[in-house]
């Protein structure tokens, strides 16, 4: 358990040192949203509808981008050896790394959301659902992503990025996330169920991610 916390804490520290961490992905996120606001153009009517999709897309994006190297650095400098050597449950350590990733890539995005949503002049009743959907859904992104990252360790010459492996897992998360946010904003009855479904996905990811990820790492390290 203390190992779990130690890993989380270390990855957080590293993320903040290595040019940015939380702030990194927050600004990235803001930048991205801004780009879209700019791209879509000034019509507020148009913008409103896009707050949820764009914010969700960007959140997923921020995750995908940073996940590729989730284990790579540790693998190269040998500290993954130490982690394997000391792990009674490698799954826990994968979970820890995924959690750290969510804290540095997922949470900041959520923190920035209200500001960005304002910029998209999202109607007031839209905020709670959007935040809820992100809060419930984004952990799944980090957890599913860990699988791709772990598998990717092995293939030096892979010509297809491992994001592809996680894509089928990202897609439903994204779709249900946007659904939930929009249903909530429009006060449709679908809101609760789609939010529940989203939660189910996250739970599933919390199970699948560590198991599959750990299995892949074990394979790649041997």
């Amino acid at each position: 358990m203390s190992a779990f916390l130690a890993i989380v804490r270390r990855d957080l520290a590293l993320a903040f040192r290595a040019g940015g961490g939380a702030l990194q992905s927050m600004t990235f996120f803001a930048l991205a949203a801004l780009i879209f606001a700019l791209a879509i153009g000034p019509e507020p009517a148009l913008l409103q509808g896009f707050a949820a999709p764009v914010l969700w897309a960007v959140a997923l994006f921020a995750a995908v981008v940073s996940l590729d190297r989730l284990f790579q650095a540790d693998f190269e400098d040998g500290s993954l050896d130490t982690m394997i050597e000391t792990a009674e449950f490698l799954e826990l350590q994968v979970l820890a790394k995924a959690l750290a990733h969510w804290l540095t890539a997922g949470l900041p995005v959520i923190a920035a959301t209200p500001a960005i949503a304002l910029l998209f002049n999202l109607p007031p009743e839209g905020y709670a659902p959007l935040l809820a959907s992100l809060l419930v859904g984004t952990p799944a992104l980090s957890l599913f992503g860990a699988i791709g990252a772990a598998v990717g360790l092995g293939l030096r010459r892979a010509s297809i990025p491992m994001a592809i492996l996680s894509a089928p897992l990202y897609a439903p998360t994204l779709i249900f996330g946007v659904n939930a946010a929009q249903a909530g904003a429009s006060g449709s009855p679908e809101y609760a169920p789609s939010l529940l479904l989203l939660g189910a996905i996250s739970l599933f990811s919390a199970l699948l991610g560590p198991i599959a990820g750990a299995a892949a790492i074990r394979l790649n390290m041997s």
Partner: protein
Amino acid sequence: MSGATFKLQSGETLLLKGSNGAGKTTLLRALAGLLPISGGRVLLAPAVKASPSELRAAAIYVGHTDGVKSAMTAAEHLLFWSRLYPGGAARIDAAVAAFGLDDLLKIRTGALSAGQRRRVALARLVISGKPIWLLDEPGASMDAESNANLIALVLAHNARGGAAVIATHDRIAITARTLVVERAPQAA
């Protein structure tokens, strides 16, 4: 590789010699349970076949790539490791003392000199509290003093009943049985 039949008693040190690329690192990583052993088996204690996971539990490997992050200070490394290795927290001070890290603790390891950085990496041995030490070129780019220091540490470890396997090129002042690793003739 083949023919690796040898016995490592508790309280003894084995030296691995052999030219570059002979296979020392490979052997050590296998012993550490970080590589699969194709054929041949490793016996822990009275003839118990050890699975890689058991090996990982008993042995600690410090290799060429030292697992030290340039962005973190020595102190942060020690703290981190002490959390990974059960009971490590109690051994931090011992580690600092053993490798004279006192005045390096607050410096980013990226700013440390090669030898200083190496010492930080080796501090993991003490923190781990594992019985079997597997060292790959421990002395590389460490000065004579730190090297003597390290050897004393290994001997003390042996005295405490711990075992060690050390792969090295420079002759060091430990009287121990030596394993010679040779590169098998390849059909080029």
